[in-house]
């Protein structure tokens, strides 16, 4: 299908299937999004569709951005994102076209991209799930420390220093996270809602981007294959 939509995370709840199983769901309110620009490979070197989402007061936007949205016949938008499409697909979009959750009707799985909640400066046990040190056996004041950070490594070279990208304590969260292949439980086109099974990164009211599932894990691909 090749459509992506911007929306907000509303929150989590549960629903029941007809045979009584409880399903944890996240409620997303998607769109309406406006096509604000169509990138083509001749001019931009790649083909993609840019969408705008969310109203913003003109005085809180910038003149260039207001003009950019006005070119698509749209009021100023708060968020803009692009998604790549093939040139043939790009031709199907028109500037100023409105995209709603209806465009996802029939989708079985989606990917959800969001910004995870910021956790602040965290140690390696929380950040990278290190094991830490012993609780006892003579361990003193080192229970949650990473242990040795040295050792041989190919890019260390001469003169010491650590391997680049060595996992250590630091800022955690508040980064782009993609959750793949979430089941679409229900689509409520009237209210622009989509219910997906499971959790979605970020806080409630956070902006998320939803796209058709790009690559399914094996069990889900099999399920879908069986349906066809």
């Amino acid at each position, binding site marked *: 299908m090749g459509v992506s939509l911007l929306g907000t995370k*509303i*929150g*989590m*709840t*549960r*629903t*029941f299937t*007809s*045979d*009584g199983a*409880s399903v944890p*769901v996240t*409620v997303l*309110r998607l769109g309406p999004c406006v096509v604000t620009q169509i990138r083509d490979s001749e001019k931009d070197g790649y083909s993609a569709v840019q969408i705008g989402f969310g109203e913003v007061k003109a005085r809180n936007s910038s003149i260039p951005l207001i003009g950019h949205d006005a070119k698509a016949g749209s009021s100023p938008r708060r968020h803009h994102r692009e998604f790549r499409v093939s040139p043939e697909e790009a031709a199907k979009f028109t500037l100023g076209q409105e995209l709603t959750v209806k465009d996802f009707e029939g989708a079985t799985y989606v990917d959800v991209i969001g910004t995870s909640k910021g956790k602040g400066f965290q140690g390696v046990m929380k950040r990278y799930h290190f094991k830490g040190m012993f609780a006892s056996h003579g361990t003193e004041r080192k229970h949650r420390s990473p242990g040795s950070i040295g050792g041989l490594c190919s890019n260390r070279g001469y003169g010491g220093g650590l391997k680049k990208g060595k996992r250590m304590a630091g800022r955690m969260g508040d980064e782009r996270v993609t959750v793949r292949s979430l089941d679409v439980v*229900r689509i*409520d086109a009237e*209210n622009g*809602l989509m*219910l997906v099974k499971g959790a979605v990164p970020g806080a*409630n*009211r956070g902006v998320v981007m939803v796209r058709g599932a790009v690559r399914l894990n094996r069990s889900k691909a099999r399920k879908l294959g069986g349906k066809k």
Partner: protein
Amino acid sequence: MGNQQVIESVNVNFSRTDVPRMDVGDTVSVHCRIIEGQKERIQVFQGVLIGRAGRGVSEMITVRRVVEDHGVERIFPLLSPKVAQIDVVRRGDARRAKLYYLRDRAGKSRRLRDRRRGMKHVAGLPIGEMPSPVPASSGESKGDAKKK
């Protein structure tokens, strides 16, 4: 519409009106649908309601009964389609929200008083309702007490 209202609106079709008013301490029987292959049958689980948790579509009840000296607790989602029916068998008097202390009780001390605190409630009556017309004898005694 606020976020919370949206979430509630999502689950409107799961709300049900056949759940009776019940409080912690009541003895309830939960009729649950059990699907075995093609057949569906109803199994009744009767016990003391020892706790309620959550609200809205997520509300859960914990029901405890004792079977052959083994305590059995089952937690039911109140609005699950698998719960066919809930009956209140007996109203019990509980003074706290979670009756976990019943787990440590054995024998007669496991029983809860009937709910008739201050004579305002008569056993068998739904809680919200006013008691039926007071029997003549007790009515007189009440009147007498007022006069004095």
